[in-house]
């Protein structure tokens, strides 16, 4: 699999953002939290950039939407795409396959609920998240006029969520990308979310 330099750069930026956003005080004395307890309503807008990947596939995922920081959930509109052509085989009859090169585009409404169980003295929080992507995807094959519609699918996901004060959040987890045309549907998901209009940074 060949990665374009520009896209490798975006992935590197994602990782380095994580390092830059994690100050030393992140590792201060933690306080246990009740992960099911809510706070007061703290609506915010936010955007995210992330990747979905496994050993066979790689997609970039961008999102924008509503982030609720008091009750720790989000509803976002996301657009994901594969920035290069991947190769795969489709069985079209018994012992007959097409091997094609294809790109993918996916739009989704993402719901995510976070359960934080640790809070640090600088108001960073560590917890887990549960999410669901309601996604609609298309595959574009080289050599075909046809754009294969892989259709609507629910893509459940879960993982670890680290909120840096009320500025940003890093999520690392697993996503089951069902209706993936060729690839293994089990993918890793790394996402960096930034909040835009938080007035109270604590």
């Amino acid at each position, binding site marked *: 699999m060949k990665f374009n330099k520009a896209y490798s750069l975006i992935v590197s930026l994602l990782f380095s953002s994580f390092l830059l956003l994690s100050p030393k005080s992140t590792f201060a004395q933690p306080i246990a939290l009740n992960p099911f307890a809510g706070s007061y309503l703290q609506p915010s*807008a936010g955007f995210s950039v992330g990747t979905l990947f496994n050993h066979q596939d790689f997609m970039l995922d961008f999102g924008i939407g509503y982030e609720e920081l008091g009750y720790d959930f989000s509803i976002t509109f996301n657009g994901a795409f594969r920035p290069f052509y991947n*190769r795969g085989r489709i069985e079209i009859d018994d012992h007959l*396959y097409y091997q094609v090169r294809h790109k993918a585009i996916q739009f989704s409404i993402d719901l995510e609920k976070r359960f934080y169980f640790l809070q640090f003295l600088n108001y960073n929080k560590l917890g887990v998240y549960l999410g669901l992507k309601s996604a609609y995807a298309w595959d574009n094959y080289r*050599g075909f006029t046809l754009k294969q519609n892989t259709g609507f699918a629910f893509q459940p996901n879960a993982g670890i969520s680290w909120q840096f004060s009320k500025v940003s959040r890093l999520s690392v987890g697993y996503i089951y990308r069902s209706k993936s045309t060729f690839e293994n549907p089990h993918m890793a998901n790394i996402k960096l979310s930034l909040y835009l209009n938080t007035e109270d940074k604590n």
Partner: protein
Amino acid sequence: MRQSFLITIFSVLLISFTFSCSKKSKSSTGECSANVICYTQEPGELYVKLELTQPKNNVPTEVTFYKGNIDKGEILEVFPTLSTEVVYLVPVGIIYSATAKYVVDGDTVIVVDGDKLTTSYCTDGDTECYDWDHEMVLDLKLKE
């Protein structure tokens, strides 16, 4: 104000990333290197190279070359070959596609690839210098 600006910038980036797939009829390779002879006339024909996997047991690979995509295109040539490379000189600005049929462990695998043949140029100041040896590769090799 600042947040609205950020949201707008991000939305524009999202949309442009997503819909940046359409292909132009010519592509730039950047600044020309010093030893390049500058041909300012755009070529009307360029090369399409089909790359194939070496067939096993000397069974020729059946290759079909199309003008257009394979599902709506016009067949230009069908031939068996033992070669791993076939090159065509064809008009630019048109989509070409090809298939190669292999038999692998009793299964038939038809490898498909296609793209629009475009001209390639580098820039020397305001001048566009066209690459008359530019070739488009259609990868018809079997996936390992």
